[in-house]
């Protein structure tokens, strides 16, 4: 956290400045967004957001409640399609291809861009079924042995295998909150996506479970691109390489995590991370 005595001269942009500050594109960009606007009916939830998310990078999205960070990551796998009255304009490219194109099918997109939700939401089925469901519907494996293998590797990568290996046919909803969230992560990586979106994955968890998930995110970075929405600035500082600060539907500042937290260039970012609001 920033110290109080930091001189305000380093703040170059005043609160009235609404253009994004910092380098929005990533050198190894996998997802590129250009001037994305989201409307919920009349409400303009996101305004002109441009942001790139790089390969094997964890990007943290921070900002006060209602600033549009969840809305933004839900655009990346088109989960906003399920919200009635939601309209998305602008361009989002995944590996150079637009994901909001006419001919884009959301099913393969969502298999490619997995999502972990705020509240752990395992299916009310067995632990095995929870993890096996994705590979099964996508036809990724055809044998029972193959399925068992996928389930085991996914649970291992989610750091849950040792805890649940003896009770795979117990209901997933019977696990503790932290275990449920790791089960959801295992379910997501069982489909072998390329990008994982996490919408405040630790908000319902205790500090120990949170530490486990954070460690897991760090390990997953080697294979996946991860975008994580968080309310905890410590968490953003711990797990991410880049940080994006949202404010009232606008992307205010993007930069290397260390830079954003120690040396923000926008007054609003400074206000937020020093706890003046939020």
């Amino acid at each position: 956290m920033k110290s109080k005595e930091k001189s305000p001269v380093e703040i170059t942009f005043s609160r009235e400045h609404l253009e994004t500050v910092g380098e929005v594109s990533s050198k190894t960009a996998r997802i590129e967004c250009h001037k994305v606007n989201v409307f919920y009916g009349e409400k303009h939830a996101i305004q002109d957001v441009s942001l790139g998310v790089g390969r094997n990078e964890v990007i943290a999205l921070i900002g006060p409640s209602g600033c549009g960070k969840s809305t933004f990551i839900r655009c990346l796998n088109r989960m906003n399609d399920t919200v009635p009255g939601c309209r998305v304009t602008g361009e989002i490219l995944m590996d150079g291809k637009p994901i909001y194109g006419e001919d884009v099918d959301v099913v393969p997109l969502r298999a490619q861009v997995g999502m972990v939700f705020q509240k752990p939401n395992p299916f009310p089925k067995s632990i095995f079924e929870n993890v096996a469901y994705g590979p099964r519907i996508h036809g990724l494996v055809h044998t029972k042995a193959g399925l068992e293998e996928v389930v085991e590797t996914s649970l291992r990568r989610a750091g849950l295998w040792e805890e649940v290996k003896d009770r795979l046919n117990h209901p997933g909803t019977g696990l503790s909150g932290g275990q449920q969230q790791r089960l959801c992560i295992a379910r997501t990586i069982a489909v072998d996506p390329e990008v994982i979106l996490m919408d405040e994955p630790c908000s319902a968890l205790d500090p120990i479970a949170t530490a486990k998930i954070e460690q897991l995110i760090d390990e997953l970075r080697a294979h996946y691109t991860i975008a994580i929405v968080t309310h905890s600035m410590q968490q953003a500082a711990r797990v991410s390489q880049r940080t994006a600060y949202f404010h009232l539907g606008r992307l205010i500042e993007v930069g290397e995590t260390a830079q954003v937290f120690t040396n923000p260039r926008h007054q609003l970012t400074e206000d937020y991370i020093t706890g003046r609001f939020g």
Partner: protein
Amino acid sequence: MSKSMLNPPKSSKTLEMVQASLPRRKRAERRFRLYGLLSIIAGLLFLVILFTSIVSNGYSAFYYTNIALDIEFDSSQLDPDGKREASVLAGADYDALWKAALSNLFPDVTERLQKRALNSMISSSAGDMLRGMVKENHKLIGETQRVWLPVDDVVDMLAKHKFDSDEADASARVKNQIEWLDRFEQEGRVKKVLNKAFFTKGDSREPETAGIWGAVSGSGLTLLVTLGLSLPIGMAAAIYLEEFAPRNRWTDLIEVNINNLAAVPSIVFGLLGLAVFINLFGLPRSSPLVGGLVLTLMTLPVIIIAGRSALKSVPPSVREAALGIGASPMQTVLDHVLPLAMPGMMTGAIIGMARALGESAPLLMIGMVAFIVDVPSSITEAATVLPVQIYLWADSPERAFTERTSAAILVLLLFLIVMNGMAVYLRKRYERRW
């Protein structure tokens, strides 16, 4: 703002005022609970009155009085040629057999009117019963055997003490019959047997042969049609409206109309059925097929509304989870949402069915109120249903039909209790918490 205003010193005055208001609040609370308790007691009381009245009126219909007579299967009467020809045996006068047995027992009854009163103690179906016995077993001819014969319904009422004494005094005929019945009883010739006819036969003009089986099978066939049509249609409609349909003016309109349909008086559906299914499509009148179609129209809104609320109660996180790993909308619904909503949908369907089972008004309009003796064996044959049967019997003048009405109500209530119990069981058994 000064600090003392934000945190005023604790005053004992507040506490005093709270203490002072406590008795009043407690009284109000006790009164509130009492009102609730009283409502429940009132409700239960009415239920108890209803059940006692129906059970006390109806249970006696489940058994029937029989009288033993020593029947001489007189070969000169039945088979004068001695050839045992089927046509001759079938054409013989079997009523004469039990009439002869009766006059043997009461040789002093000779006056014509009295004799007629004596003969009317035995059910008119007794002759057919004896004919059946002889047909089964030719060896009976020439023998004398003690046979239990059903009595007439008036005598049955007498034996069950269902006649007011004033009424019995008024009629000399009934008076005589009471005397004779006492004599039968003294000789041990009276017994009460399970009223098989009530459970196995269709309707009849004679109370002693009137049964409920025709109405039960009519109800069963009608409900089968209703279930077969309304469950798939209702579930498909509920799933489409809740999970797939866009939210716009049209779906709002549909929703309003479904709610309206659920409130339409059922007799209107009966008129619709008469106009469309019978007059326009020419389907057979009085048939369970048409009855089932009409009840389907009536049950559909109930099933759709129950199904939609069951689907609505599935938490959206389940849908998000499935969609989030790339399940198609159909997979999401079939694999995750529907299994969770199923108990609720089934409960709604069973309650809808129970309502359909108890419905009579729309079926009157399509002719299921006709007097039908045969037990229906297919959905296109004329039939009646339990509630309509109750209506018909309640309208009959014979005293014996009063107890049959109550007995039929008991049977209907039994079915309803079983169905509602099933709904409760399903809800408890498969209810999930998340």
